[in-house]
């Protein structure tokens, strides 16, 4: 060992460091450093990544931190052992919890409290005063630190190349002798290679909120803060060799490794005198009896025994018990939940009630999901009702305490847009140019190239813009802030703060740790995802309504399975509101796939995803399924993997298995491959893997084209991985929601509306869909509606649905509760509502929503009455007639039907009275524009004109610029497809239109009808004209 770098700022010191921890480690490995320290500012957020990268390179990391103090010079803190590391973590926790999210407030005294076992290095200022000396405050602090830390203290010396290095070194040497503090050489590394200086300058600008031309001395003067080779450091410190030696001494003293952190499961989950395995065994058999009665099928008991053996072998019992405990709580509170993830669809999880996917229906081999090659915990995510998940979270906090349970972090990475904004601002791009560029980049593309500049009419040779492009691409993937994960919980037996610092989350009553799920996984800690799912809320609400109005006792597990009528409905793409399969893409797939069994739904859920689409696996699968192509397997070994999916890889597990079996990846490598694709930066690594995969597969006799497709599919999975195990859990919810929609459309529509916002569709579509299925929908009314949408007595096949006040924009639940409370025998006049304490503004909103019909007032009359209410006698004079009572009756201008409909849309975003387009039909017919119904019944290949309100406009990233539009008129909906070149040409019409008219070619494929658009016209003016009084002239 020659020299060890002990002061390294990575990009986890946000807006300071300009290299990823992995890049720093790689560079260090290149220079032959056996060990380096990572010392980010008041955080340990980047150390695990560095640790993982270092292990791969056979290096070691000293996980440290730069302590930036409120009342003294900064200190580098390097823990020597596990206990000292725990103290450092607690110290940072103290600073974090003291202040708001994203900040850490530390004082000298805090450091003194937790100093034991930590090596400290004083970081002197880079500047000297007029007398070429350090100022007295600093010298005083050095003295104080010496008194506090004794021999565990060093004084850092950095070659800044700022002109005064000789003098600074002289002064540091003086101080070092005066207080007997050894000098230590560091290079205050901010980036791994010199070229990153530009990015570091840009980060500084973002931090200081200035442009690069204004930044001045806020920037570093030169590019010397890169990682230097040990030989160069030794040369720079040739006059102070002892400072070099000291780095070795400190590095040797700090032997703590993150690998020694141990995860211990909490004990509360155990009954007395039982081992975790005993308890799990008991619970599993108990659950099996509940599900299957006293005669447990052979296959089930075999599966349970098999799984228990495996769990015992891998020592996972505690993990299952922890999940079980949370699910048990949810069930006791009537909160609907459903597990998914690698282990969630096991027989044991079914017995424990963690999942409702029946293992007898669904043949999934347990080990297929848990890789025993890597000793890591299985992954179970549990979805809860989104409105009640917080109860579960608070249960966990209460049960284990905040010092033992916390949410893991998510590292928010710079996406292209954010990076572009930061770089562009720093580089002084005009707001307009920035907006132009920013609009042009799709949120999920992850590269930014000159092509984009050309498309936007910018000069790609402009040096400034070229810099922007280069720097933006460098910044993509940089961590920008620590957020809280959507629901990943870590629960420990001992103090969590000994493992990792805790910080305040932005949400009240939440705390999270500094590490994200990958970090946790790398260290082998347990994580449970407590996720929120809107559809579960909806299903629970539907179950309640079904009980109240139809006397059904439904659960996720007892919905009648495999009902052909449900599959028929799904095959007809009649899926508005249904979980997962309601999107345009899914709807156009359904009639082609025509699912008939539960497993078909699993495939349906997984197939319309970036993975299979990018891998070009969708069409081969459809052809094979429809018998248009022979089912064949690329090889014998792959038949086992691809048997269930007709030889076409559709699931993430399959693609990874192929990498292992066909390209001879180790399981760990395959996992790394998937992961490297999920992160934006590791481009070089991906290319290496691509070569390895394709070469490997070709070597083993596979066609290069197939290998390419598998690789692209893996790429697609990277960003939105969707394994079979998740698809299975989702498919259950697809089936349950479809079943509800199929047999109880009234119940289903109310439940969806009451769980909004969720799904793809607006309330208007849900309501019109319900009406199309024979549900009578009744308008909002002060005497009949509640906050939620409700079901009334049967009218026809189903109960009538009464719209609730939640559909009226601007109303608050509290006001409505007041209204409902005082309703008693029903209201007969507006005054009664006013007397009940409802505010005028609320009454006005009710009037505008036309909710006074049951007392004989239309919206205009009601508003006229409401606006006079404020001189209605109250308190002492209540009950006396007001002046208004003596007013002569006034005839208000009659409201036309179009005006009513427009008002309905303005207040409830839907109208039960009529469809706006119906008023324009005459005009449209005169222009030979068809109704959507006519279009949907027309024959293939004819040119059509059709117009309607724009419901949905989607441009999925996977569709190469194609825009899907759904329009609606009084007869139904129509699906439009706009190809890229047409979209570009009619962009403003498409994006500005409320009422869109298109010309195009009708394309019919079985039941699926599309209009391939060739021209677009913005007809919104017609809508406006509907309510404008002829003759009035408005110059504005």
């Amino acid at each position, binding site marked *: 060992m020659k020299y060890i770098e002990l002061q390294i700022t990575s990009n986890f010191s946000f807006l300071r460091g300009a290299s990823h921890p992995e890049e720093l480690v790689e560079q260090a490995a290149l220079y032959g450093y056996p060990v380096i320290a990572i010392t980010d500012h008041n955080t340990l957020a980047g150390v695990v990544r560095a640790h993982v990268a270092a292990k791969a390179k056979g290096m070691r990391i000293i996980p440290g931190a730069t302590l930036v103090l409120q009342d003294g010079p900064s200190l580098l803190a390097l823990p020597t052992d596990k206990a000292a590391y725990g103290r450092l973590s607690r110290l940072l926790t103290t600073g974090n919890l003291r202040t708001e999210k994203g900040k850490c407030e530390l004082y000298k005294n805090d450091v003194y409290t937790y100093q034991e076992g930590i090596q400290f290095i004083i970081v002197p200022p880079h500047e000297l005063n007029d007398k070429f000396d350090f100022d007295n405050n600093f010298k005083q602090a050095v003295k104080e630190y010496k008194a506090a830390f004794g021999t565990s203290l060093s004084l850092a010396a950095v070659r800044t190349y700022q002109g*005064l290095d000789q003098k600074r070194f002289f002064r540091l040497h003086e101080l070092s002798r005066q207080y007997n503090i050894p000098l230590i050489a560091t290079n205050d590394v901010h980036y791994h290679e010199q070229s990153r200086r530009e990015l570091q300058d840009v980060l500084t600008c973002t931090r200081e909120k200035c442009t690069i031309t204004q930044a001045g001395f806020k920037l570093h003067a030169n590019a010397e803060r890169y990682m230097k080779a040990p030989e160069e450091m030794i040369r720079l410190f040739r006059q102070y060799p002892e400072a070099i030696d000291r780095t070795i001494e400190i590095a040797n003293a700090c032997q703590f490794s993150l690998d020694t952190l141990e995860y211990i499961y909490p004990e509360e989950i155990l009954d007395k005198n039982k081992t975790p395995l005993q308890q799990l065994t008991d619970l599993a058999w108990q659950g099996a009896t509940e599900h299957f009665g006293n005669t447990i099928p052979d296959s089930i008991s075999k599966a349970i025994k098999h799984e228990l053996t495996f769990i015992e072998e891998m020592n996972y019992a505690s993990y299952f018990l922890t999940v079980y405990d949370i699910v048990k709580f949810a069930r006791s509170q009537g909160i609907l939940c459903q597990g998914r993830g690698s282990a969630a669809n096991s027989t044991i999880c079914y017995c424990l009630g963690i999942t409702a996917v029946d293992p007898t229906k669904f043949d999934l081999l347990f080990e297929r999901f848990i890789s025993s090659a890597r000793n890591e915990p299985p992954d179970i995510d549990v979805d809860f009702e989104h409105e009640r998940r917080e109860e579960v979270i608070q249960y966990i906090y209460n049960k284990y305490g905040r010092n033992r349970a916390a949410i893991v972090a998510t590292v928010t990475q710079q996406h292209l847009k954010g990076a572009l904004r930061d770089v562009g601002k720093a580089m002084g791009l005009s707001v307009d140019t920035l*907006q132009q560029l920013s609009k042009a980049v799709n949120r999920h593309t992850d590269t930014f190239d000159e092509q984009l500049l050309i498309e936007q009419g910018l000069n790609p040779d402009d040096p400034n813009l070229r810099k922007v492009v280069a720097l933006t691409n460098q910044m993509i993937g940089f961590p920008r802030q620590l957020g809280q994960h959507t629901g990943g919980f870590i629960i420990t037996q001992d103090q969590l703060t000994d493992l990792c610092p805790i910080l305040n989350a932005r949400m009240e009553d939440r705390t999270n740790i500094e590490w994200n799920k990958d970090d946790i996984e790398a260290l082998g800690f347990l994580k449970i995802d407590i996720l929120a799912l809107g559809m579960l809320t909806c299903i629970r609400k539907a179950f309640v309504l079904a009980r109240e109005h139809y006397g059904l006792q439904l659960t996720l597990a007892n919905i009648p399975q495999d009902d052909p009528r449900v599959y028929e409905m799904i095959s007809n793409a009649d899926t508005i509101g249904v979980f997962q399969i309601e999107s345009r893409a899914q709807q156009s797939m359904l009639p082609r796939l025509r699912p008939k069994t539960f497993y078909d739904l699993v495939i349906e859920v997984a197939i319309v995803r970036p993975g299979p689409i990018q891998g070009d696996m969708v069409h081969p699968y459809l052809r094979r399924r429809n018998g248009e192509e022979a089912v064949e397997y690329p090889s014998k070994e792959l038949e086992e993997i691809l048997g269930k999916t007709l030889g076409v890889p559709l699931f993430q597990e399959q693609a990874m298995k192929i990498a292992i079996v066909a390209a001879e990846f180790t399981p760990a490598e395959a996992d790394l491959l998937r992961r490297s694709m999920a992160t934006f930066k590791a481009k070089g690594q991906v290319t290496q893997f691509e070569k390895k995969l394709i070469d490997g597969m070709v070597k083993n006799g596979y066609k290069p084209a197939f290998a390419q497709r598998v690789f692209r599919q893996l790429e697609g999975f990277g960003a939105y991985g969707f394994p079979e195990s998740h698809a299975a859990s989702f498919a259950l919810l697809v089936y349950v929601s479809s079943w509800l929609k199929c047999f109880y459309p009234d119940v289903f529509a109310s439940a969806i509306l009451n769980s909004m916002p969720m799904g793809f569709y607006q309330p208007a579509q849900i309501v019109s869909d319900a009406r199309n299925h024979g549900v009578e929908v009744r308008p909002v009314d002060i005497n009949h509606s509640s906050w939620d949408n409700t079901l009334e007595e049967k009218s026809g096949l189903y109960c009538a649905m009464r719209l609730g006040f939640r559909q009226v924009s601007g109303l608050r639940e509290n006001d409505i509760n007041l209204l409902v409370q005082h309703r008693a025998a029903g209201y007969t006049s507006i005054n009664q509502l006013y007397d009940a304490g409802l505010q005028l503004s609320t009454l006005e909103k009710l009037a505008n929503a036309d909710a006074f019909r049951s007392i004989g007032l239309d919206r205009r009359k009601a508003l006229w009455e409401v606006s006079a209410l404020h001189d209605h006698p109250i308190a002492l004079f209540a009950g006396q007639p007001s002046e208004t009572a003596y007013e002569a009756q006034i005839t208000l201008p009659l409201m036309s039907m179009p005006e009513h409909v427009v008002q309905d849309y303005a207040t409830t975003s839907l109208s039960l009275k009529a469809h706006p387009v119906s008023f324009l039909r005459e005009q449209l017919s005169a222009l030979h524009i068809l109704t959507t119904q006519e279009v949907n019944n027309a024959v293939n290949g004819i040119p059509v004109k059709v117009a309607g309100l724009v419901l949905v406009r989607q441009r999925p990233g996977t569709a190469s610029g194609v825009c899907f539009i759904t329009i609606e008129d009084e007869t139904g909906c129509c699906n439009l497809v706009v190809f890229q070149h047409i979209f570009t040409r009619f962009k403003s019409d498409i994006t500005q239109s409320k009422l869109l008219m298109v010309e195009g070619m009708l394309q019919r494929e079985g039941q699926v009808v599309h209009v391939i658009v060739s021209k677009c016209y913005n007809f919104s003016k017609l809508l406006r004209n509907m309510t404008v009084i002829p003759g009035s002239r408005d110059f504005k």
Partner: protein
Amino acid sequence: MTKRYISIWFRHLLTDWYIRKHPDAGDSPLVFSTQQRGRQLIHATSRKAENTGIYCGMAVADAKAIYPHLVITPYPPDQEHHLLTALGQWCIRYSPVVSIDLPDGLLIDASGCTHLWGGEHNYLAEITLKLSAYGYDVRAAMADTIGTAWAVARYGNDATIIPGGLERKALRPLPPAALRLDDTLLTKLQQLGFHKIEDFIHLPINALKRRFGQAFILRLKQALGGEREDILPLGIPSVYEERLSSLDPIKTAKAITIAITRLLDVICFKLQQEGKGIRTATLTCYRIDDQVVQISIGTNGASNNTTHLLKLFELKIPSLAPGPGIDLFILQALLVEDVISEQEKIWSATGSADNNITKLLDRIESKIGSGSIQRYQPAEHYWPELSIQPFTAPNDHQQVNAPRPDKLLPQPLPIEVTAPIPDYPPMLFRFMGQLHEIKKADGPERIEREWWLEDGAHRDYYIVEDAAGRRYWIFRLGHYAVSQTQWFIHGFFA
């Protein structure tokens, strides 16, 4: 006497003004944009822009989607106020009582003025014609009340002159917005189906008042003439101009000086009251032979000090040819700025030294010509060529980040150097044929180029002292290279 009011509506005030200034800008749609909560919104549109469907309040990005080649100009805050004030002052020729009507109009009290232009019709036509000739798209109307004039100007059809007593009739077909009501009221009226004023004007006042409030009634009454409405007239603009005539023609320098002193006294007194000072001033002298001669002065900082300004004029008097004699002096302060009164520093030994320097500089510059004096101050840049900037105004003392030479060469000059590698200080260098042996050296100070401006190698600067004790600032360009290592001298320390 019945009052008669004119309301003028500038339909595209800002853009018309802009096009007037930049005639080319009128060729394509033009908008003014403002930043609101991080969004660029359209503040004003030209007629062309309006015709494409762009409206005020729209996001600039959306507008660009409609019309990609839209010309977007940042909105100068309060510009309407400035413009209307100027236009209003111009209108004072038609009536002494003119008021601005933000954001896009003027009000003129025309009572008793119209006969001078041959009646109301001609009067109104004259005003609209003149304003149109300036390039402003205006609509104007005249009525007994401000409210009706305002309403008709903006929403009326053809008749622009409403005879007294016909306000109600004129208002009836107009939309409620013509009554100058706020948006909440307008929405409410709209919801009730009151699309025109005639839909509700007949209703009992009490019923209306209960529902729409006092403000509504006030606006209605103001328009109908039931309620008096006053306007706040613009003042006459203040001009810093003084004149002094003498009975006998003045010829001598001394007499001219006295005249200037008197004029300066009056103007400076006025300026002092307002906290302003002169940046440029012109003395115009009318000679008895009908010739006009002028001298002008300029200062480096606004001044209202008679003595100082007089000194500046005195320097110019010799160039003033009095000819047969001057009988009228007019002194005009053309550019006037707020005087920044330096706070007295009690403990500062130099006191008003800075002020004295300014005065000295004014005088030197007056003598040898403007632009001949350059003063520099440090600029916050590492790169030496960029680290100084011309002095524009006194500001906070800027720091330099490291020791810098007293004399910085405008261009570094190449020198020959013997130096050990790779980055140790040199041992000797040859500059202008002379060999300097280096005795002491400090460095290197490594300075990188501002990469956003230029590419190129960094410089390693050394402060070196030769045997004679003179110090130099020299640098090596880039890293040491075997073939071509270039050294330069860039400055001298005292």
